[in-house]
């Protein structure tokens, strides 16, 4: 990427004059490819940081007994692992893909708002520094879980205030980015590209961007109420002052549930592009896929109570949330069936992007099933706040969102770098990740069924054996990602030259520009038929 972008052969043709280089370039760039690159590297660094925290958790849980971490520290690591992975790794990764690919896919020369784009990225740096350094302030980081429930979060030290501040900044970054994406998609499509001719990745990001704008301010509201309860004498969450701790849960999860769809919908879009490419067959049911994505997004606003089944809501509420949550299974199922129908009687090949896409379909569906089981309120009462829930959301967020991110990287690396990555190593990365992921998380379903609660640093002896297996799997999973880093770096530096369209079955405007993509693409918009 660096070689091409630096070349910038047509700089003079556009009267840019001297293009900044070095640090100034990256600080001031408004180029969607540069910004996409920064998002992706940032997300990978955060993935490693969050991953180290996961390994700290799993090393403590390797055996019964408290070996490495004091319980407060353990709670802090658990909290930061969640916040960093969701807000520092997964979300920025998908924004990185959006930045790199949406303009190229819709035939636009860049995102609508270049400077806003730059700011959306650079805000992530102070936010992540706040989160990481909160570990080292007196009292340590917030230790209330990523869900930050009061009154526990009211008790915490200044690490909680740093977290609240970080969350605000992260929210602003996401909102600004979403404004950019919506404007770009609605206004800058090439002539002839109607909405229903857009690639699915653009559709899923368009819908996700609306979700972000709708719910990030709600999260900001929730943490602001925490802040004022902590320092400014309000009692939103304190019964003594006429408030209610459960109010926080409602406000938080009204954000929190759409948030998990924010995390997965762009992933759905990626799978909807990778599967047709490697099936050499058009996506089955494009229209339904669009409607299904929109239905999932709309339904996601109605189900937040399923995170609160044991909080004491009236049974009518429990029933409503149960039925509404079950409903989401319908459009999600439609998507899975449509992907498989795309494969059916296609001409399949199994390069690494396709392997991750198939792994996604297989494992995300399993996560969907455990979600359906959790939706059954009566059963949820047994499983709430146990490792069954941990297993469920890791299947959907890791085997779901993360796998789709890996698929995207392998799929688009040739376009970004101009080189083919090492296919053999890519496949090895896939299989290692697949095996170790399941080793880590499948057994956690059993732990939850057996009654092991979440967020405990030490456990009763009957949970020993599966915790041991899970910890070994976690270390394997973590180490396997170093192979991914190696593959990516080697590919950036060199490798067999990639064609403009290295994947025979790939369809889309991004494959009509050279590999590596020039610094500016589609300065003259194509005419789409």
């Amino acid at each position, binding site marked *: 990427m660096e070689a091409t972008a630096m070349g910038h052969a047509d700089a003079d043709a556009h009267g840019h004059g001297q293009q900044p280089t070095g640090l100034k370039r990256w600080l001031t760039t408004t180029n969607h490819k540069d910004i996409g690159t920064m998002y992706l590297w940032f997300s990978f660094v955060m993935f490693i940081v969050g991953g180290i925290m996961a390994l700290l958790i799993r090393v403590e849980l390797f055996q*019964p*007994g*408290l070996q490495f971490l004091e319980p*407060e520290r353990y*709670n802090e690591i658990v909290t930061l692992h969640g916040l960093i992975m969701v807000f520092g790794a997964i979300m920025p990764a998908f924004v990185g893909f959006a930045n790199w690919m949406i303009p190229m896919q819709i035939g636009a020369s860049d995102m609508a708002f270049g400077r806003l784009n730059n700011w959306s990225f650079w805000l992530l740096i102070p936010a992540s520094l706040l989160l990481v350094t909160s570990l080292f302030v007196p009292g340590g980081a917030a*230790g209330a*879980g990523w869900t930050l*429930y009061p009154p*526990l979060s009211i*008790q915490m030290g200044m690490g909680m205030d740093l977290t609240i501040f970080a969350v605000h900044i992260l929210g602003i970054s996401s909102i600004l980015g979403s404004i950019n994406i919506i404007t770009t998609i609605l206004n800058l499509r090439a002539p002839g590209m109607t909405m229903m001719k857009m690639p699915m990745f653009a559709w899923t990001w368009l819908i996700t961007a609306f979700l972000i704008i709708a719910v990030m301010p709600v999260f900001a509201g929730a943490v602001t109420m925490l802040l004022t309860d902590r320092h400014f004498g309000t009692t939103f969450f*304190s019964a*003594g002052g006429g408030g*209610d*701790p*459960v109010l926080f849960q409602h406000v938080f999860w009204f954000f929190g549930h759409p948030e998990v769809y924010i995390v997965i919908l762009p992933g759905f879009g990626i799978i909807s592009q990778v599967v047709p490419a490697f*099936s*050499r*067959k*058009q996506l089955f049911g494009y229209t*339904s896929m669009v409607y299904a994505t929109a239905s999932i997004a709309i339904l996601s606003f109605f189900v937040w109570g399923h995170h609160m089944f044991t*909080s*004491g809501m009236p049974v009518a509420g*429990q029933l409503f949330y*149960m039925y509404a949550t079950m409903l989401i299974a*319908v459009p999600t*199922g439609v998507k899975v*069936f449509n992907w*498989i129908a795309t*494969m*059916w*009687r*296609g*001409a*399949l*090949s199994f390069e690494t992007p396709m392997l991750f896409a*198939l792994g996604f*379909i*297989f494992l995300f569906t399993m996560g969907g099933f455990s979600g359906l089981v959790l939706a*059954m*309120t*009566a*059963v949820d*009462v*047994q499983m*709430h706040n*146990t490792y069954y829930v941990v297993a469920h959301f890791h299947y959907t967020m890791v085997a779901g969102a993360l796998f789709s991110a890996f698929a995207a990287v392998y799929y688009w690396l040739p376009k970004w770098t101009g080189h083919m990555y090492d296919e053999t190593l890519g496949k090895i990365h896939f299989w290692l990740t697949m095996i170790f992921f399941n080793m880590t998380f499948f057994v956690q379903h*059993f732990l939850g*069924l*057996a*009654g092991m*609660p*979440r*967020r*405990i*640093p*030490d456990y009763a*002896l*009957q949970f*020993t054996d*599966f915790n041991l297996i899970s910890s070994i799997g976690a270390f394997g999973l973590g180490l396997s990602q170093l192979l991914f880093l190696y593959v990516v770096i080697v590919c950036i530096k060199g490798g067999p030259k990639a064609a403009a369209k290295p994947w025979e079955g790939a369809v889309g405007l991004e494959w009509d520009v050279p590999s590596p993509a020039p610094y500016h693409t589609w300065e003259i918009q194509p005419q789409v038929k």
Partner: protein
Amino acid sequence: MLQSATIIGEGIALETHIKTGFINMTKQARWTGVPRLAALAVLTLLCTSAEAAYEVNFQQPATQVAQEVYDLHMWMMGICAIIFVAVFSVMFYSVIRHRKSSGGARANFHENTRVEILWTAIPFLILIAISWPVTKTLLAMRDSSSADITIKVTGYQWKWGYDYLNGEGEGIKFMSVLSTPEDQLAGKAPKGSLYLLEVDNHLVVPVGKKIRILTTSNDVIHGWYVPALGVQQDAIPGFIRDTWFRADREGVFRGQCAQLCGKGHGYMPIVVEVLSAEKYAAWVAGQKQKMAAGAEDPNKVWQLADLMRHGQEVYVKNCAACHQLGGKGIPPVFPALDGSKVANGPKIAHIEIVLTGRPGTAMAAFGQQLSDSDVAAVITYERNSWSNKTGDAIQPSEIKAARR
């Protein structure tokens, strides 16, 4: 691994129950042909490979509600297994047979409205079918009326308090604190089989009676969770929630706090002991006797040695979690008591803090949890331990006078 077999449902042959659990399923389980077969297959596979240590399913149910939840889960797993096999056999067939390398012709279809309507409508109907039995169980779970005994459960950081409010045993109240020995927790002694699942005072209830549990909290949100009884309910400060259970057999059932509540979240288990009617009546009589005997003699004068001994017990159970066994605390959040101004200064200030806590911090109002003699003893202990040498012997009467 051998130890684990004795843990859950003490006195019950665990392995036998897991293997025969399916056969012993009640008539409540509404099964139809194919899902039952599928679930049978799944369960057989699971059971034959399950040792006591590798628990793969819910704990053995001890109430009808828990049994229904167990059955519902098996039912769900059966349905999910069928759908899973159906969907992924299609996908794997495609992966094997529709490869480019096999050279087969590539189809061109990319929509089929009829098929799409079918695979939208059929899952929708399956969901409706699933939701009916779940709804029935949920409605039963939420009906806590006509209880025989009502017990208030209060969550504290980091222990539980039980108050028998109504029914046989009314008036009994006690705290229930983790009783796993300190050296096991610190890794200095081998862990007993009840590691992290044992408490000093069990919640004792009679078999076959409807027990209504009211939950609340003294500080942050906790979760009262006993899987074998099929109950979990958040304990929320300032509010009362309720749940209920009716144990259908005698035994000891263990659970843990299920809502992150701070550093002691993993260290506040729940132990429910279900006794026959006669044994329960005997227990109630014993408790009432103990309470009468232990009733505070406000004028009793304690010797320093007795205060220190009792004070150390109280300190280990209630104070050491934050202020540490060595009195050094974890500054700045948990102040040191060793050498502190409060522990070496005027008695009355020390008494005030222990009785009423410090609002805005984690220091609770222990006056509400501890008796006068407990408070007197623990303050005496703190003022005469480590490098503190005040020589003060605080009497229960001083505590009683300080309470307002």
